[in-house]
């Protein structure tokens, strides 16, 4: 008559262990899916909010035409009646500025980072290496606002007062004012900012190349530099690409620092201007959002800013896809990066 409770009692330890296991899996799984739901929510919300700006302009949204600054101003001042909202925007100067500053600083940083990483891994004297490695990690952790501060207080006046000649200022006076807030400073500061991130990844990748490969090449009489360049750097190429992708993502999303040094004038520098090209101000997408953050409450203006955010979001997602694809060949060699 006491059979059912006994059975239950006898089986309870195992069953509680199992059900606890199932519960743990469920809780952990739900939390993990929460992260996924958050990403989905982010994409949906940002795009829903940005839609009016895209739908009113069509594909011309991405194209050139007119003065972006004036267009943004018009959107900001658009009448309160939803039927009369102004949406006209040709965002090309902002996109162009983003691409320009990101591509040039990533290219510069890539060359610099690969050489520095080779130096750290192979050629640096032991004492220097012991200083260099923590320094690189420290530089990678320095907040971007500090780089921005140094840029705006040191480099901008330097360029503005000494590098830009009066003739250059006068040559473009009717189009734009040259103050030192320029493409040049933006690229320099951004390069310094993203190089340490790349160096850290590339150093790890170069280290994880099997020693036997290096020794094999050295045994064939190849010198150290050639071993590094032809064997080690080549087999770590996917990791170098992954590092470049990560750095591109950082550069793309850098808002505050670029808002400080790049000049906040929606202007697209013209390569035909010769050296003046590098001294002209720019305004990338991310810093446009920061600078105009007060305008988020104005409905059409906010929607336009969300459209910028949507473009950034899509590019960032595309980049992380590229990064994932770039890492695949590494797994084949069994190198983890």
């Amino acid at each position: 008559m006491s059979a059912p409770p006994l059975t239950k009692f006898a089986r309870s330890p195992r069953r509680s262990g199992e059900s606890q296991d199932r519960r743990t899996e469920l809780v952990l799984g739900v939390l993990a899916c929460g992260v996924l739901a958050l990403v989905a929510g982010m994409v949906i919300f940002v795009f829903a909010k940005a839609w009016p700006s895209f739908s009113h302009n069509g594909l011309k949204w991405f194209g050139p035409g007119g003065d972006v600054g004036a267009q943004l101003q018009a959107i900001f001042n658009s009448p309160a009646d939803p039927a009369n909202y102004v949406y006209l925007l040709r965002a090309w100067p902002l996109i162009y500025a983003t691409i320009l500053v990101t591509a040039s600083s990533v290219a510069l940083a890539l060359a610099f980072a690969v050489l520095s990483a080779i130096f750290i891994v192979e050629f640096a004297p032991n004492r220097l290496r012991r200083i260099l490695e923590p320094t690189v990690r420290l530089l990678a952790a320095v907040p971007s606002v500090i780089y921005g501060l140094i840029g705006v207080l040191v480099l901008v006046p330097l360029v503005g007062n000494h590098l830009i000649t009066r003739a250059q200022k006068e040559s473009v006076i009717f189009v734009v004012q040259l103050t030192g807030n320029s493409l040049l400073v933006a690229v320099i500061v951004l390069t310094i900012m993203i190089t340490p991130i790349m160096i850290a990844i590339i150093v790890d990748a170069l280290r994880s190349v099997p020693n036997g490969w290096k020794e094999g090449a050295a045994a064939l009489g190849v010198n150290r530099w050639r071993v590094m360049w032809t064997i080690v750097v080549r087999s770590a190429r996917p990791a170098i690409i992954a590092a470049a992708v990560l750095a591109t993502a950082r550069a793309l999303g850098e808002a505050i620092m670029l808002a400080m040094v790049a000049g906040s004038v929606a202007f697209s520098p013209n390569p035909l201007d010769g050296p003046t090209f590098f001294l002209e101000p720019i305004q990338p997408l991310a810093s446009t959002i920061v600078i105009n953050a007060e305008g988020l409450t104005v409905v059409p203006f906010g929607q336009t800013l969300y459209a910028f955010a949507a473009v950034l979001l899509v590019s960032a997602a595309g980049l992380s896809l590229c990064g994932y694809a770039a890492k695949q060949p590494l797994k084949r060699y069994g190198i983890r990066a």
Partner: protein
Amino acid sequence: MDRIGLGLCWAAGIALCLIAAAIVGFMLFKGLQFLRPDLLVTSPVASQDQSKSGGFLDPMVGTLILTTIGTAVAVPLGVATAIWLSEYARPFWLARAVESGVDIIAGTPSIVLAIFGLIIFQQSFFGFLSFTAEGGAVFGRSFLTAGLMMSLIALPLIVAATREALQSIPGHVREASYALGKSKSATIRRVLIPAARPAIGTGAALGMGRIAGDTAIVVILLGATALQAEGSTPLFGTLRGTGSTLTSYVYNNSPAGEGNAPEKAYAAAFVLLLIVIFLNFSIDTIAGRRKMEAAWKG
């Protein structure tokens, strides 16, 4: 040809040293030059006269609050995600999706996270996190909302560090625990998490550095104002209120912001740099201890 390459390598290495030394030295010089003790203990006051505009006590408190909230949310969520990804990961497609979701968060610019936070926290459902205006419009800006978004910045770092650690624990350690009759959840709690703790610490410290150094979220979701409590409850009121952090203080006092007080910006940037350096050193200490603890790596 080889010599040119070698020379370039040396040049790059030495340039790196010089740039690092220049940045750190410059910040040290400017920081010591402008940092006065009274800046650390007074609150900012709006004033034209820079000698009367006060120090940056509020921003320092703000950085502390925000880092605490962000880490407190990110660590449990990140560790749970990492454990699920490396120990369960069923069904497979879901695990892949979560993995790429974390990747996407890692790649998303913080400015996008900031304005995304503004949309969701302005829903009336989240009204309790910030203050609600007369007409029922939710402001959406507060320490709580900014802290929650900040946790997303730290999350990928914590997930990556924890996963790495869990994957480096050999399978026989888990099997030994199962052989002693421990369930999977007990193994996770008693064996895997203690073994991964140093890595979780490293990830959390990295994340704290990122949170302390982020500006975009502060400018948009915290309002970058002085500490302004909402409501009468003392602690919760502050958390629901707006404020500023060291990063937004630096930004606002630089020539790009309204304040234009470079001395104070330098001083605040110096304090911020010290915080980041301190966090970095704590990572080194944690990492050093890990080497001793991991006995099975032998």
